[in-house]
C-alpha cells in the first residue's frame, strides 16, 4: 500500500485540469460555480468537448472509445473536473443505457446507439420508476404486448429526469404477467418521438422543472429495440446498477461545494466577525470536512479493490455516505446565508436574468439547492433500500 500519488498520476491530474479550464467554456463553469441553472446546450457543449478529447465515455471498453484508466485515474478525473466547476456529466446514456447495450445488446444495436451516445448527439432518459413502483421497482406495470414485429406499450413512467430533452428512453416493461414479478420484465429502447408518448413536467420543491411523467398510449416499438432476451430485463437492470459506480459518492462535487460553503462563511458577517470564525459554526464545517476526507479514501479503497463491477454493498455504502454529505453541505450553505436565503427568485438562476439579485449573489441558489438535494437520499434506490441490500449481503 502506497497512498501517495505517483508523478504520472500528478501529470494526469494536471492534464485533466488544463483540459477543463481550456476546453469547457468559462461561462458554463461560472454557472456551476455560482449555482446557476444549466441549459441543455450547456451539457451538450461540455459533452462534445469531452468527446473531441476522447474522454466522453471513459468507462467503456477501449475499442468502443473508452479509456484504459486505472481506478485512481478515474478518481482523479472526476475530482479535477468537479473542482474546476465542470458540469456533472448526464449519466443516462453513457453510464446507464450504454453498459447494458454493450453487454447484452445486438451488433446492430451497438452500431446504431453507441456512436451518438459517445458524441453527445442523442440524449437519453431512464424509464424505470412508475407511480406504483418506486423502491419496489419489480412491481412495475407498464405493459408491452407483442403484436407481429412490434410491442404495443401502455403505461406510465415517472420521475423521469430531463425527459424533456431526451431523444430516447430506456424502459423496463412488463412482458409477462403470469410469472414471478422479476421474471416478466424486459429492457426496451424507445424513440421519444414515437406517437403515443406524452411528457408532462413535475415541478419539484425548488420550483424547477427537472423531472417528468412520461405516458405511453398504444406506443408501437419495433421488437429489434428490445435489448437481449425477453423477460430478462431485471438481470440487465441489475448489471446497470453495479456498473461505473466510481462516481456514485460524488466526492469531487462535494469538495467543490465545501469550497463554496467556506467562501460563503468567510463573506458572511455574524456579530462582528466572519461566520467562519464563529467556533460553533466552524466546528460544523470541520466535522463535515472530516466526513468527506474519510469518504474520499473509502471511495478510493472501493474502486481500487473492485476488479470489474463494484460489489453492490460497497456501492450502497458510498451512495449512503455520499448523499448524506451532499445534503449536509446544502444544509450548511443554507444556514450560512441565513435570512438572505429567504427571497424566492428562481428567475435569477436562469440564463436570461440581467437584473441585480436580492441580497448577495451566492445566497440565491442556497434554498433551492437545499430543497432540490433532498432527492439524493431518495433516488437511485433510497438510502433505506441501500441498507436493506447491504444487510442482505452481510447477514445473508
Amino acid at each position, binding site marked *: *500500500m*502506497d*497512498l*501517495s*500519488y*505517483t508523478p504520472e*498520476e500528478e501529470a494526469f491530474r494536471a492534464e485533466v485540469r488544463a483540459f477543463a479550464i481550456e476546453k469547457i467554456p468559462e461561462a458554463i463553469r461560472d454557472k456551476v460555480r455560482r449555482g446557476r441553472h444549466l441549459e441543455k446546450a450547456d451539457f451538450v457543449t461540455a459533452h462534445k468537448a469531452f468527446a473531441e478529447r476522447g474522454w466522453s465515455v471513459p468507462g467503456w471498453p477501449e475499442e468502443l472509445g473508452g479509456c484504459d484508466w486505472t481506478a*485512481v485515474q478515474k478518481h482523479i478525473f472526476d475530482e479535477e473536473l468537479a473542482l474546476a466547476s465542470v458540469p456533472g456529466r448526464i449519466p443516462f446514456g453513457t453510464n446507464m443505457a450504454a453498459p447494458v447495450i454493450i453487454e447484452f445488446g445486438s451488433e446492430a444495436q451497438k452500431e446504431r446507439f453507441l456512436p451518438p451516445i459517445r458524441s453527445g448527439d442523442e440524449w437519453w432518459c431512464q424509464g424505470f420508476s412508475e407511480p406504483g413502483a418506486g423502491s419496489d421497482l419489480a412491481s412495475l406495470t407498464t405493459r408491452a404486448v407483442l403484436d407481429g414485429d412490434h410491442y404495443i406499450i401502455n403505461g406510465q413512467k415517472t420521475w423521469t429526469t430531463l425527459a424533456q430533452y431526451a431523444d430516447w428512453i430506456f424502459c423496463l416493461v412488463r412482458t409477462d404477467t403470469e410469472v414471478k414479478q422479476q421474471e416478466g420484465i424486459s429492457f426496451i429502447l424507445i424513440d421519444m418521438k414515437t406517437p403515443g408518448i406524452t411528457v408532462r413536467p413535475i415541478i419539484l420543491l425548488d420550483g424547477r422543472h427537472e423531472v417528468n411523467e412520461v405516458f405511453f398510449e398504444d406506443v408501437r416499438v419495433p421488437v429489434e429495440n428490445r435489448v437481449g432476451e425477453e423477460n430478462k430485463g431485471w438481470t440487465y437492470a441489475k448489471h446497470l446498477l453495479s456498473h461505473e459506480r466510481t462516481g456514485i459518492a460524488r466526492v469531487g462535487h462535494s469538495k467543490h461545494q465545501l*469550497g463554496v460553503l*467556506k*467562501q460563503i*462563511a*468567510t463573506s458572511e458577517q455574524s456579530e462582528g466577525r*466572519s461566520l*467562519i470564525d464563529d*467556533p460553533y459554526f*466552524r*466546528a460544523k*464545517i*470541520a*466535522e463535515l*470536512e*472530516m*466526513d468527506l*476526507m*474519510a*469518504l*474520499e*479514501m*473509502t471511495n*478510493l*479503497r472501493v474502486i*481500487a*479493490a473492485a476488479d470489474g463491477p463494484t460489489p453492490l454493498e460497497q456501492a450502497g*455504502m458510498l451512495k*449512503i*455516505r455520499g448523499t448524506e454529505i451532499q445534503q449536509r453541505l446544502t444544509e450548511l450553505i443554507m444556514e450560512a446565508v441565513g435570512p438572505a436565503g429567504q427571497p424566492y427568485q428562481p428567475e435569477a438562476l436562469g440564463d436570461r436574468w440581467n437584473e441585480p439579485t436580492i441580497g448577495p449573489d451566492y445566497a440565491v441558489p442556497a434554498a433551492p439547492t437545499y430543497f432540490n438535494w433532498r432527492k439524493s437520499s431518495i433516488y437511485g434506490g433510497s438510502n*433505506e433500500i441501500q*441498507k*436493506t441490500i*447491504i*444487510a442482505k449481503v*452481510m*447477514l*445473508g
Partner: protein
Amino acid sequence: MDLSLSDEQRLLVETVERFVADRYSGTDHSDLTKDAPFRREDWVSLAELGLMGLLRDEDMGGFGGGPIELALVAESLGRGPVPLPYWSSVVLAGALVDGQGMGAAMLEGELLVAPALLEPGARYDLGSVSTTVEEQRISGAKTVVPLAEEADCFVVSALEAGELGLYLVGRNAEGVSVRSYQTQDGVRTGEVVLEKALIESRIASGEEALHRIETGADLARIALASEAVGCMAALSGLTEEYLSTRKQFGRPLAGFQVLQHRMVEMRMAVEETRSIVLVAAREAAGSGRTEQARAVSAAKTKAGRNGRHVAEEAVQMHGGMGMTMEYPAGRYMRRLMMIETTLGDADYHAGRFSRLMAVPAA
C-alpha cells in the same frame, strides 16, 4: 497510488494476527479485580517479531516501516484486544528517545521505556507542564503512565529554568515512586511521583523537545485510532454473528429490518474510520506539520465518535449478553473507551482540526 497490501505488508499483518491469536485468544478478561500481571515475555515476543523497531530504519536494525505499517499493526492488535500499550512504550517512546543510543536494547525488548508526559489536571494538554528540573534533579507528578511500574525508565517532560525539556529518569532512581493500577481495559498503568529524583540525561530541550512530543503524540494517535478500528471490526463481526444465530419470535434477529439497518450503520462506521486512519497515515508520511496534525485529529475524532457508536450499538444489539463481563464484546468496549480518553478525545481533536482547517482569506 497503490491501495493493495504489498507482500511485505501482508506478511506483517499475518505475523501480528498470529501473535494475537496465540497469546490473547481466549484470555479470561472476566475479572478485572484480579491482578492481571504484565507478562514481560509478551513484550519480548513483540520484539522477536520485529515490532519494536517497526518504524526504525532498516540499517538501524528496524523494519523500516512508516505510518501505514503502524496502522496495519495497530489494527491487528486492536482485534485482540491486546493489553499492551504499544502506542506508548514503542511508538511514543521511540519518537521521544530517537537517537539516544537506546535503540538496540529497546529493539530486543530488554529496555522498556515509559513516556511520562501528562500531568494530573492537565486533561489532554501535553504542553501543560509544572514538573521542574533543578541541578540534575526532577520533581513533579505524572498521571496515567502505561507500564509505569514495569518500565526500566521514564521519559519525562519538565521545565528547566522555564524551558521545556525531555529527561530520562530511571524507574528505580531514588525519589521515584509509582502507584500502580490497571485501567478499565486491564492495561498496567500508574501514577508517577518524582521527588528530587536524579535524572540520567536530558534528551532534548526547547523547540526540539516540543517537536518530539508533538510528532510522537501524533504517531501514537494514529496507532490508537487504528487500534480502535481493530476493536470496532471485531465488535461488528461479533454482532453480525450474534444476530444471525440468536432467534426471537421464531426467527433470527438478523431478519428484523430495524436491526439490519443499525448493523449496516455499524459496518459503515468501521469502514469510515479505517479510511480516515489511512488518510492520517498518508499525511504523516509526507506532508507538512499542519496537514499531518489536521489529518491525525480527523482520525482520532472519528475513532472516538465511531468507536463509541459501534461499542454502544454492539452492546445494545446483544441484549443482556452484551452487559456481561464474560462476553467478549465488553472488553472491546472498555478498550475503545480508554482509547477515546487517551491523547485527546473526539471533541479535543475536532477542536484542533477546526482551528487548523484550511479557510479562504477573508
